[in-house]
């Protein structure tokens, strides 16, 4: 079968000494930033970008991918041991994981998270390898209308699946789309909203905005919260191996989480965070003993952790096959590919098969490294958690500043991030989620260009979006999703699901 010969090519590439080293470096950095609260994969990858441009593209992408899925592993450690999500996709893991730790079962929780993630990572990688070629085949038939419809679906997906109020998420997406309008219009060459500042004619730096909102804004937000007394369970991590009873309870949760995560990861606007939320809700619903949730149910750790890791792998599918980023991390990866001279989209697989299959194979190897890095060597990461926050945030600021400067050897991005730090904090205060905004900002210019091309071809007739079969189907799915989210009955249930 094709799949096997392709994977063989991939392993041939991924198993070279150089690529193994970069995979290890990536997953190590990923675990590190995952463990550290307040530093997620977006600012971390942004910081790495300038230094990888000189590398071989395959090695660079292998490393960046490792950072992303490595962060999913590391985040659970922090969630379980100190009840702080080390990474935003581990928010739900903290609920039951921390309770398990309080009952002296931190080891079992860590093992459930680690083994679940490993299983999900392997399955997610296989899904990616099996479905990416098929999807890339369809993508060749895509015209501007189809691309526009797909992006609309992604944006609406981000709205429906965001964890806050629906209307606010709509507003944030629109705000992001508008920020994306600050650029030089690709079709007419007119500079828009640049106020005579030359740096703005290329558009707002996505990395600078992300670092401002998620890096600096989060720090200000964290420092604004009164210090809570948190028990840290770093000393009693022993008995890593779960009991037979644990396995019996966790296994179905891992399977369901993996399936959910693989599916939701592909959706534009979806990704790891969403998958973990949905998985937790599902586990609670199917459980015969839902009252155990919130008091240390192992399913509540195993399910979401499997889901977020599976989603982290499959979210590469839209990025690699269509060139559309389903989440901000993938947007950074696309940025990196473009700089290294690779145009993301269906052609990558044909023109750079070594890169494509090497990257996929490296993910499997990376997951293997991660399970070793995160279970036998858990002690290292536990030590790291004893570093107080007052040492952490100055370090984050320091590295972010250097990263921002080296993006384009210019201090404009530092100023921009400073401005967005304030905006990010305001969003936290107004309980507006910044995720949808970032996605809107990334997809905005692409969406506009494709919509305008569609309108040019159709002579101003918007209905082509509905009458062309593929784009019509995509729009229909989007509408169903939006209506479902706004219906009072479902809306109430959805709110409850996110509140728990």
């Amino acid at each position, binding site marked *: 079968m094709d799949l096997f010969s392709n994977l063989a090519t991939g392993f041939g590439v991924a198993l070279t000494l150089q690529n193994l080293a970069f995979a290890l470096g990536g997953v190590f950095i990923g675990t590190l930033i995952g463990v550290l609260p307040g530093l997620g994969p977006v600012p971390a990858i942004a910081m790495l970008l300038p230094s990888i441009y000189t590398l071989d593209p395959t090695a660079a992408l292998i490393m960046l991918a490792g950072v992303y899925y490595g962060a999913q592993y590391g985040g659970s450690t922090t969630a379980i041991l100190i009840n702080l999500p080390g990474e935003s996709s581990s928010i739900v893991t903290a609920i039951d994981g921390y309770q398990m730790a309080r009952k002296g079962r931190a080891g079992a929780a860590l093992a459930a998270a680690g083994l679940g993630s490993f299983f999900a990572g392997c399955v997610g990688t296989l899904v990616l390898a099996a479905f990416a070629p098929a999807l890339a085949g369809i993508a060749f038939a895509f015209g501007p209308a189809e691309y526009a419809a797909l992006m609309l679906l992604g944006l609406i997906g981000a709205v429906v699946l965001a964890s806050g109020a629906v209307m*606010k998420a709509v*507003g944030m997406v629109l705000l992001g789309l*508008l920020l994306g309008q600050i650029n030089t219009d690709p079709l007419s060459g007119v500079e828009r*909203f640049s106020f005579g500042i030359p740096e703005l004619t290329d558009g707002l730096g996505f990395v600078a905005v992300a670092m401002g909102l998620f890096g600096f804004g989060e720090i200000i937000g964290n420092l604004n919260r009164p210090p809570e007394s948190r028990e840290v369970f770093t000393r009693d991590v022993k008995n890593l191996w779960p009991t037979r009873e644990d396995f019996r309870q966790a296994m179905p949760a891992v399977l369901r989480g993996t399936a959910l995560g693989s599916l939701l990861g592909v959706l534009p606007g979806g990704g790891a965070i969403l998958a973990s939320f949905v998985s937790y809700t599902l586990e609670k619903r199917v459980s015969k003993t839902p009252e155990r949730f919130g008091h240390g149910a192992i399913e509540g750790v195993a399910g979401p952790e499997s889901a977020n890791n599976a989603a982290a792998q499959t979210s590469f599918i839209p990025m690699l096959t269509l060139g559309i980023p389903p989440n901000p991390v993938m947007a950074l990866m696309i940025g990196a590919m473009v700089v290294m001279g690779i145009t993301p989209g269906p052609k990558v697989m044909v023109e750079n098969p070594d890169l494509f299959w090497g990257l996929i194979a490296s993910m499997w190897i990376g997951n293997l490294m991660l399970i070793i890095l995160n279970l036998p060597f858990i002690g290292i990461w536990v030590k790291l958690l004893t570093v107080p926050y007052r040492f952490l945030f*100055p370090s984050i*600021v320091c590295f972010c500043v*250097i990263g921002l400067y080296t993006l384009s050897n210019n201090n404009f991005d530092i100023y921009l991030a400073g401005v967005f730090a304030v905006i990010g904090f305001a969003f936290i205060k*107004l309980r507006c989620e910044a995720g949808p905004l970032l996605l809107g900002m990334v997809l905005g210019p692409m969406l506009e260009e494709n919509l305008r091309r569609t309108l040019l071809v159709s002579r*101003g007739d918007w209905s082509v979006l509905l009458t062309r079969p593929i784009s019509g189907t995509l729009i229909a799915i989007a509408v169903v999703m939006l209506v479902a989210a706004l219906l009072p009955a479902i809306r109430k249930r959805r709110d409850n699901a996110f509140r728990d």
Partner: protein
Amino acid sequence: MKIKSEVDFWSGVVFIVVGLAFAIGATEYRFGTSARPGPGYFPVGLGLLLATVGVIELIGALGRERNEDDRITSPIWRPILVIVAAVLGAGFLLPRVGMLITLPFVIVLTCFATSDFKLREAFGLAAVLTLGSWLLFVVGLELRIPIMPSKI
């Protein structure tokens, strides 16, 4: 009519103001027609759409009973001012005096964002991070960052 949810009310206000600002600003650019959309077509449309969302949000935030959960608590200003000052300061200083002066300044300043820091710790952290950054970014990754003050 009172404000039921302060959080939603002010989100609505922000959406309206920003939406209208973009829409009005975009009238400077050619709007075009649907058949030939110009550079102003999308910003005007999106801006008006955002303002509409803002109005809906604002109306939804009004009601008789005040929801205490949705009040906006006054922020602690110290971390905001310190972090923003540190970041903007770094932007100003880095190209002018180089990282060996900028980083210690930024790190020590950042430490002031909380009240539970000790000056000795701040200086220690600044020394470690500056040396570490120099080794990692300049020696290791060979990035082009100004190191010393540039000669005028």
